Each structure stands twice: as structure tokens, then as C-alpha cells.
């Protein structure tokens, strides 16, 4: 296990809020995520998941409240927080006109890795993500499943203790999704905390704990099994509909 914070919390949010004009996207969010957890952050479209993740990643300033990532307050230690997180969004954030290797080199560069370190890490990641044969291919020509693994590679480049995945498997077929989750488990087994959002309720089942967000607030929080029992739900899909449905 990687040493994280004294408190053992990878992510902690306290009354974290974000307003856009008179619309409150995230409403006083309180959340503790333990180091090493695979935490599923669920909610309907527009429930505030992406806004919350963006605040935790330092892309967006909170309107009120505070959050700690790896023990560091995001309001004052934004840059330090960025070194400790890996981020992968549903849009992947890859340059389609660059080759696979060049994408990794670029992101390695902006994380301040020197060229020897980038080269070593690149080889290691390509091997692990089963992308070695795609090294020189233009990223734009890759199938979605490959891009998705490459985006994960980018997020893992600097060996962050915490990984934020915002709908990482959207639009990807079941085979690629399962392969992707195998990778997530591997990463988590090494002690990395995984904070993930998804619309696939079968994936929610893969998480250690999940929260379900409705209109900017967390309406349910616990392990999939305990939540299903609590709400008398058959499966996660059923649970989700029960919690989100009015």
C-alpha cells in the first residue's frame, strides 16, 4: 500500500458546494473515501457528479465548503493536489492527431517527468494496457476501447495515489468494458484509490462502496449489497431507479 494521509482518507468533502448563477449544481456535499477504495459515484445526468469531480480535481473552484484530496485542502494546495491525482474524463482528453506514444510523452512532459523517466514509464504502461503494438499509430485511428485504455494510461503516468474516472466506459462495448475493469482492479490492488462515475449499473456492482447523487446531494451511500438490502432492490439498476425516482 502506498502511504496516503494520516487520516487514511483519500478524498474528503465537507459542505462542498458549487453554484452556477442561481443554480446549485453541488449542494453541501459531505463525503469520505478511504485510501485504496473503489468508490462508485453515481447519479443521473445533471445530478452534479461531473461538477463535484471537477472541483476535487482543481478544475473548478468551489462556491463554498472545502475538500481534501490525499490530505491536502483543494482551496490552498491546488497544484500539489494535481500531482497526486490522475484524471480521466468521458471525452478522454487525447490528441487525435498525435501518435499513441506522443500523447504519453506530452502528458509525461507536463507532469515534469524527464525524457528517460517518460520512456521507461511509457513502455511499462503500453505493455500493461496491451497497447505496445499501437505505439506509432495516430490516436484518432484507434478503436474506442484502445483510446479508453490509452486515456487510463495518461491518467496513471505519474503514479498518482488517487484516480478520478468520470464515465470512463461510456459508449464502449461490453468486452472492452470488462477488460477495462480488470485493469481498474489491478490498479486498485496496488493501493490506488479509484473514484469512478458510471451510467452502467452492472459496473456499480464492481465498486466497494457507492453513493447515489440526486439534485446535488447524496441520497444513498454504502456497499452495493447493504444498499440493495436497505431499499429492497433486486439489483443496482433497480436500486438506482428506487433512489432517484421520486
Amino acid at each position, binding site marked *: 500500500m502506498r502511504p496516503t494521509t494520516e487520516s487514511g482518507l483519500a478524498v474528503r468533502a465537507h459542505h462542498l458546494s458549487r453554484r452556477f448563477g442561481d443554480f446549485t449544481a453541488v449542494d453541501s456535499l459531505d463525503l469520505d473515501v478511504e485510501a485504496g477504495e473503489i468508490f462508485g459515484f453515481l*447519479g*443521473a445526468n445533471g445530478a452534479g457528479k461531473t461538477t463535484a469531480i471537477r472541483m476535487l480535481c482543481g478544475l473548478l473552484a468551489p462556491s463554498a465548503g472545502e475538500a481534501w484530496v490525499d490530505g491536502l485542502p483543494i482551496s490552498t494546495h491546488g497544484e500539489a493536489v494535481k500531482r497526486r491525482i490522475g484524471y480521466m474524463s468521458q471525452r478522454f482528453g487525447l490528441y487525435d492527431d498525435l501518435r499513441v506514444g506522443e500523447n504519453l510523452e506530452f502528458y509525461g512532459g507536463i507532469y515534469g517527468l524527464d525524457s528517460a523517466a517518460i520512456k521507461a514509464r511509457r513502455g511499462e504502461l503500453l505493455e500493461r494496457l496491451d497497447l505496445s503494438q499501437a505505439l506509432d499509430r495516430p490516436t484518432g485511428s484507434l478503436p474506442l*476501447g484502445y483510446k479508453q485504455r490509452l486515456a487510463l494510461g495518461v491518467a496513471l503516468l505519474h503514479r498518482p495515489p488517487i484516480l478520478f474516472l468520470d464515465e470512463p466506459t461510456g459508449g464502449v462495448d461490453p*468486452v*472492452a468494458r470488462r477488460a477495462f475493469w480488470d485493469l481498474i482492479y489491478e490498479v486498485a490492488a496496488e493501493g490506488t484509490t479509484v473514484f469512478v462515475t458510471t*451510467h*452502467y449499473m452492472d459496473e456499480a*456492482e464492481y*465498486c466497494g462502496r457507492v453513493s447515489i447523487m440526486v439534485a446535488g446531494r447524496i441520497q444513498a451511500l454504502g456497499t452495493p449489497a447493504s444498499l440493495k438490502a436497505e431499499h429492497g432492490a433486486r439489483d443496482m439498476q433497480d436500486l*438506482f431507479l428506487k433512489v432517484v425516482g421520486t
Partner: protein
Amino acid sequence: MTPVLDIRSLARAWDGKPALRDLSLTLQAGGMLGLIGPDGAGKTTAMRMACGLLRPDGGEVRVLGLDVQRDGAAIRPLIGYMPQRFSLYPDLSVDENLRFFSELHGLSRDQRQQRRERLLAFSRLEPFTRRRAGALSGGMKQKLALACTLIHEPRLLILDEPTTGVDPVSRQEFWDLLGDLARGGMALWVSTPYMDEAERCGHIQLLHQGQVIAEGRPAELSASFPRRILRLEGADPQAVRQLVQAFAGVVLHRFGHSLHLVCDPDQEEGLRLALRQANLEAKPQPPTLEDAFFHAVAHGSLAA
């Protein structure tokens, strides 16, 4: 009865590489046919050819008996096609989008008014008629796209991954709408990466590398899964992985706190025994459509 959609031996290659080979299907009014398969399996290619947007290399497509290649103009009003990236005009309101599509199909003023109301009620978009399409949530956008696709009251609705990126509640709502349409006598052909959605179709075709490798009713497909699945709760994945190494071909999947072990029927006894010796009690897990899907993709068919 003439099938609404009748496809025979449809084939198409891109730059000499076959994208679709020998696809055949029939779809009756009121039927819902699901097309599932990994990325690049040829789903979009097949749907585009069925709409006459793409010329097939071989085979034919008939819609209500009319040939798509020869009678394109006659067929167009019969088909509603919602492509994967259906683009609404984000700067136009819900109402203006609907109006544009009705004008595109040359509807009269009365027809337009009547259908607008019916579709708005059907898609529950009434409260949002003046909102710009760009400001709608993902689920509402999809419903508006569906409404625009339905404006000319097609007999056949072809939807290419209509709910990708939409949350579970909206997906459920969307599929309820599709169910209503099918009950109303429309024929629906839908591709989807979601297994729970595929299960709502009357018949599924599993497409892989341009070929249908399995098809049938969803329950039939799950039932014909040729292997066995054992479930372990709360076991240490590393330890189990070590243990099953002795069994060739056994696959281990993690599902949160539970582990699924997929084995051949003749391995089941031995595997259970080995697990029991390690103090692990495995329970049988009924196969799902997804399990069948995986097996078929990995082995090229659902045969053992």
C-alpha cells in the same frame, strides 16, 4: 404478411476489408430486433445500408416489399433513422427543431400541429418546448431526437445506440417509449452496447467482425451459454487466482466483493472440490446475456 424489414445476405467491405458479411433478417410490424456487438462489428454499416445511405456490395434490403436501392424515394417516408450522433440544432428550441424536421418531411400545417402535440405529450417534453436543444439534459436530448425521427410517422424505426451516455433513469424512460411504439405496431431495429437493453428486445442478433455469431430470444441466448459459472463471496482474488491456475481455461471475473469463475461443465466438480479444500463455498450463478455475449465473442459462437 410482408415483413417491414427484410434483409438478405447483405455485405459490404471497406477498402477490401469486409465490414459486414452475409447479414439476413426479417422484422415484422410490432417487432423489436436488437443488434449487439463490440465496436467495429459492423452495426452502423448494416444500419446505414438498410436506410439506403450506403450502397451494399451484395445482398438486398426490402422495406415493406420495396427495394431500398431501386425505390429509394418511396422508401424514405417509411423509415425513421436515428444515427448514433443524431444532431439536433443546439441553438434552436425544442419546438423549432420539431418544426424544422416536419418541414423537411413536407408536412402540412395541420399535420404538423397535430403531430407536434402528440409527440410532445408522448416524449413528455411539453414543459420544455421553448428551451434551446443545447440546454437540454442528455436524456431529454435523446427524447427530442426520437420525436424528430418520428415526425413523419415511419413504419420502421432504426436506432443506432440511442442511449449511449444517458443515465439509467433516462434510459429506462427511453426504452419505455420504444416499447410503446412497438406495441403501436411500429417495427424497431435497435443497436445497443447495454445488455439490459438488449434483454428488452424480442429477438437479438449478435454481430462480431461483420458476422452474426449468435441469435435468438434473449432468454434462449443466455440459456445456451455452454459453460458453468460459480460465484464466490468475499474471497481473496489473489488466492483464488492461484488456486484456479491448475484448471486450464477457467476464467476469473471480479464483481465488487464477489468473484465469478467460468469453467467447462466437466471441470465443475473438480473446481468445487478444490475450492472447498480451501474453505471456499462456491454457488452456481445463472448465466446472463452478457456471459453469453462474452463467450460468443471470444469463441466465435455459442457452441461449447
